[in-house]
């Protein structure tokens, strides 16, 4: 075991794993601040989501009498999934904390686990909003699978591996001719990012109109500590997707550059949210089919 109680690689691995839940509220706060500035408002400070989580943890909870143990357990499982996803990302070093979960199919189906439980929690309370949110969420997820899988598949075929750590490692060594397929796959991944994280044009994360909600509708009944867990889990998922989008498709050059890339992508999301409208629900499948076709085009171009 060598020097000290904990080996260095494990220590760095734990550190980079803790970075994900630590930084995610900051990313959400930054996106909200940029949106506020673009809308000519001052906006809340970028540390506001931390204060909000702290506030939620120190509030009492109200649970519906119709809810069962599924409602009570779902936030822990959803949060746990985002922690496991955070453990697959290599930040400082190549070795992530849980490399076994780094296969991109494992990642996609772990996300499926969190979506499943969140949808069940929405149905558990028997409210029309939760049910509607669950129905829309499962519909959108079913259609997003195609674009998400094909965009990640493009990178996998280019780097000849399905493990994301190895993909990131081999990305700088790829031939320049792979740039175009990877760029097209990046666009498809961005659509999948917006769909999975329920951002514009799929869902408005700041809406208070229950009939237009998707993600917010499923967590409408939650309060107190469970709501804190779910809000934090959503932030974790956003930073995870932003990180994947920047490191899997664009070769990295150190930690600072990577963080700047994440900030740029987050700013892009904020810009999109400030300049476009949410699409009507039945227009969304068109966007997702197009994203899937972009993914297929990327795979075909790569094979040529």
């Amino acid at each position, binding site marked *: 075991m060598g020097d000290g109680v904990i080996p260095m690689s494990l220590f760095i691995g734990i550190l980079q794993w803790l970075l994900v839940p630590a930084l995610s509220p900051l990313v959400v706060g930054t996106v909200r601040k940029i949106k506020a500035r673009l809308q000519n408002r001052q906006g809340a400070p970028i540390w506001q989501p931390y204060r909000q989580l702290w506030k939620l943890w120190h509030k009492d*909870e109200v649970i519906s*009498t119709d809810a069962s143990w599924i409602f009570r357990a779902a936030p822990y499982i959803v949060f746990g999934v985002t922690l496991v996803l955070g453990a697959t990302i290599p930040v400082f070093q190549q070795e992530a904390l849980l490399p076994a979960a780094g296969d991109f199919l494992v990642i996609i189906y772990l996300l499926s686990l969190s979506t499943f439980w969140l949808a069940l929690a929405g149905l558990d309370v028997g409210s029309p909003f939760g049910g509607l949110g669950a129905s829309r969420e*499962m519909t959108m997820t079913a*259609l997003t699978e195609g674009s998400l899988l094909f965009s990640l598949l493009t990178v996998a075929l280019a780097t000849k591996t399905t493990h994301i750590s190895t993909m990131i490692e081999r990305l700088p060594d790829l031939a320049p001719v792979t740039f175009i397929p990877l760029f097209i796959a990046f666009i498809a991944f961005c659509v999948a990012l917006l769909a999975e994280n329920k951002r514009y044009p799929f869902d408005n994360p700041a809406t208070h109109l229950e009939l237009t909600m998707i993600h917010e509708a499923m967590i409408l009944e939650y309060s107190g500590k469970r709501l804190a867990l779910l809000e934090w889990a959503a932030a974790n998922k956003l930073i995870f997707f932003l990180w994947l989008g920047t490191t899997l498709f664009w070769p990295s050059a150190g930690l600072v550059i990577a963080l700047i890339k994440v900030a740029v992508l987050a700013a892009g999301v904020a810009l999109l949210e400030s300049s476009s409208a949410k699409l009507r629900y039945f227009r969304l499948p068109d966007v997702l089919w197009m994203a899937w076709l972009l993914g297929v085009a990327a795979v075909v171009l790569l094979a040529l």
Partner: protein
Amino acid sequence: MMLFEVPFLLVIMLVSLGLGALGALLAWQKDELAHLWGSLTAAIGSAAAILTGASVLSSGEVFSWEAPTSFLLLHLALKIDTLAAFFLIIIGTIALLATIYGVSYLRQFYGHYRLSSFLFFYNIFVGSLFLVITAEQALYFLLVWEIMSLSSYFLVIFEHREDANRRAGLKYFVMTHVATTFISLMFLTLYAATGSLRFADFTAGAAVLPVGVASVVFLLALLGFGTKAGVIPLHIWLPDAHPAAPASISALMSGVMIKTGIFMLLRVCFEWLPIGPVWWGVVVLMLGALSSLLGVLYALAEHDIKRLLAYHSVENIGIILLGMGSGLIFVSLGQPALALVGLLGALYHTMNHAIFKTLLFFGAGAVVSATGTKNMEEYGGLIKRMPYTAGFFLVGCLAISGIVPFNGFASEWLIFQSLFAGLGGSSSLLQGSFILAIAALAFTGGLAAACFVKAFGVTFLARPRSVASERAVEAKGPMVASMSVLAALCLALGVWPSRVVVVLQRVASVWPQFTSDALAVAPNMITVREGFGGLSMWPVFVGLVAAVAVGAVMTGIVSRRQRVRLGATWNCGTPLTPRMEMSATAFSRSLIIMWRGVLRSTKQTEVEYLDAQMRYFARSRTVTMELLNIYSHFLYRPAARLLFRLSHQTKRIQSGNVNMYLLYIFVTLCALLLWATA
């Protein structure tokens, strides 16, 4: 050296099941006695089959037995190799668990239907399943195949006073004999080509079979065994027959009987036929993609819980065919190492589907007997009344959706990896087929998750929507016990896939042409294609549990002073009624609208007005939402019409005129004389 003596076990199995059938029949009026006796013998027979399979699989020795009969062409021939042993273990386990489940499930039929006939056919059905897997001669195979079809027919129509069940049974009867016709034609072709009815001679003659004959055999096998397996468009009997049968029979049929079709397809494609052209594999791949996607789309439209599960059987057979298709393509391309990955994925998914589908049907059976209805719209809130059933049903839902860390994910991972391997080839037609297959598998996974959120959520969650659901009681001990075993298997087979793959490699050793170059199995790690992909589920499972624990501990510490109060669900202040909840029809409505081109959904609104002239105030409004049955509309009805038209034309021979009949005899005699002298 075998673990146990296989002949001894086989004798126990057959004698037990035979005595069981006979005893059940003799106890004609006594339901309880027949139930006890039949269940005991079926359990002993199934256990003997499991031990037989385990013995052959562990020792690797092939067991053969043959005896001639008084009929010239019929030989009773048995052969148990590692593939048959694998299927014997699966069938034996499911049959044993179904028997245990039936101990309390069948009590609801006491006094209503005759259980002695049920147990008679049940023992024969289970015995025929074992005999089909171990058959080694064509005519004997057809004999036991027919016994299997007939006994399952009588089990499907067990609740024979319902019209729907009898119609379902008739459809099943017709389709299974269509399958038998194609299978008989296949055997006739093979007999004509090799001159023997023995399977060993088919394997030996495989190398010299001309491509045209081999293709004919392949297509006949695909049509015949595909009908049994439930491949689209030959699946039309499945969604009617599985709901009509009692739950333990649905589980046996869906989990095990349709797999006999897959078993024989594997034998035909990889043992009896030479290395064929690539289009064979492409056809199987495309059929698999079609079946999986359409199966799950039709399942989404269902609100009868057992029909939903039946359509998911179609979907999972499609996934198994995807693995088989990729295996066939790689065999044709001369890459047997890559073919093994697809084949192992198909075998793994066969086993997984048997387990989680049986679990789901057991849960559905418990719910149907507790509430008295199969309509999901009348369920609701059952998780509070039937907590164990709900918990195990949830495990089944997670497993069938392919969610980490259950067994469905492990087999789908293997099939995905085999499909990814196909993208590296040079033929654009092949690459296109693989891309379509990957897309089909990806979308199927997402749609299946949506369907099972609906199935579990609408059945068990929220508030009860009918009086029957308010009064439902938990299932009895044996039912819960059998479900718990299956749920544990779902988790175990998902968390330790490397151990399963080691066993499957042994099973696949029956085809020596498949080498393990593309697959490396280490403790807790499966590596495909020299590091292209690696699967290690145990660390993921441990990590997940640890992450959930970390979240729980952290929350417990930070929020330790906060309390939890109970209140009513927020409904904008309006009264909470069961009508406020999401219904099964509404949940999947948006997906059906999005896929309406494929599903051909229709919506009809009928309004009855108070005053027919004014048509202003409506008295009642009826909305009917249906899916057009495109198979009966475009395939089966036109085929039936063609058949009737042809027979109508043939009827012209019967003119009723005696002189015409004499003319027929005269012409035939002349023709025969000419032919005999020529």
